[in-house]
């Protein structure tokens, strides 16, 4: 058993995940019911597909930003930045986190984003996009955790989805989790990774930010020893 208690889900983790899921399900339900009433199917479905694609792209951009800029003292994002650096050091811990513990930060953001949209709008195309996009973003941490797991520990359906490229695969994400941590940032399906890396999109953005603002991204330097992946994990797991 793990001796680190912060990997377990607390009640408020579960509450945030429940609220996030509720807002997303309401959005999807609105999309389906209004679409059924109006008899239109294609546009909401296409909107959902666009949402799925943009969630992957969005996950990459956000991940790139958090991995490369700021530190634990940055307002709003500080704790996440620290958590992401900690993940590079101990990548396997994500597979030990309980479900709500892993997702609650994203679920909270999704709740605040989707709730007003649920309350204000009824358009099935908008809800098709929002429900799928924000749903994928909320669950991206679960997809991320599965990408760190071993094949034998995963449900065959998850493995099938990873192999089909619907969810980010263990090998594609594994390519990110090594110094300099400068590629394969997308973690929903990973479909954008090849394009973004081939065209060096993030490198271009990094160059522009460096040239205009003088900030160097973390991926330009070897990680400091304190943040390099720790392979000796005996201190973190108590003997059962």
């Amino acid at each position, binding site marked *: 058993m793990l001796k680190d208690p912060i990997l377990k889900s607390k009640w408020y983790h579960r509450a945030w995940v429940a609220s996030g899921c509720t807002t997303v399900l309401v959005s999807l339900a609105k999309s389906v019911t209004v679409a059924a009433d109006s008899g239109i199917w294609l546009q909401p479905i296409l909107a959902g597909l666009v949402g799925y694609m943009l969630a992957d792209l969005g996950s990459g951009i956000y991940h790139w930003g958090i991995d490369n800029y700021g530190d634990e003292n940055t307002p709003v994002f500080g704790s996440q930045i620290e958590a992401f650096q900690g993940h590079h050091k101990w990548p396997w811990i994500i597979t030990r986190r309980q479900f709500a513990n892993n997702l609650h930060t994203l679920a909270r953001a999704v709740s605040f984003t989707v709730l007003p949209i649920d309350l204000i709008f009824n358009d099935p195309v908008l809800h098709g996009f929002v429900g799928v996009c924000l749903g994928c973003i909320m669950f991206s941490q679960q997809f991320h955790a599965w990408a760190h797991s071993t094949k034998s520990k995963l449900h065959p359906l998850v493995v099938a989805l990873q192999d089909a490229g619907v969810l980010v695969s263990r090998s594609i994400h594994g390519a990110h989790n090594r110094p300099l941590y400068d590629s394969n940032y997308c973690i929903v399906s990973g479909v954008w990774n090849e394009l973004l890396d*081939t*065209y*060096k999109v993030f*490198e*271009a953005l990094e*160059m*522009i930010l*460096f*040239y*205009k603002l003088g900030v160097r991204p973390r991926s*330009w330097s070897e990680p400091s020893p304190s943040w390099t992946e720790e392979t000796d994990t005996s201190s973190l797991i108590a003997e059962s």
Partner: protein
Amino acid sequence: MASIPLPTAKHSLPSLLHAQTPKTLLSQKLPNLPKSFQSQFCGVKLSHSSNFAVPSSFKKSSILAKVSKGSVAPSFSLKDQDGKTVSLSKFKGKPVVVYFYPADETPGCTKQACAFRDSYEKFKKAGAEVIGISGDDPSSHKAFAKKYRLPFTLLSDEGNKVRKDWGVPADLFGTLPGRQTYVLDKNGVVQLIYNNQFQPEKHIDETLKFLQSA
């Protein structure tokens, strides 16, 4: 490429780029992209005069060209990494590879500098000298050269004056200084211009190939 240095002109002249037979070495592997983007990612080389009809509407941009193939490179005097003033005229009598790069200590520029370092003996064997130019100051160049053991001259083009004089085009809608390399013959006449922002090592391949075949 050098005859259309302005970013806006570059992006609106895909057919002109094509007529100049750019080396799009990766183009077979990459999905179909507008040619205007291909040059930034796959490189564009001008090494021989190409006889093509320039539509009259584009002639204006060629008049604005600063340094192009066949022209004598304008002289300059800049400080090197030791603070000594170096003039381009000092190198007359031998071929010179002048490479403009965005900034010291950035991944692409480091790769490029190290690639020039690793092939430096080959450049010397071809009788050529190598000069790197960026807007960084001499102390930045000194640290950069020391860290990566660069055996060639780095010049400080403070204010990017020479870059502008030579008409080195900027990339990404003007947000990034371009990465462009010129090969001058022993008379100081430009014989090759190669531009590629994101594949810096190709500058070494292309210029060495040219020098060795000359």
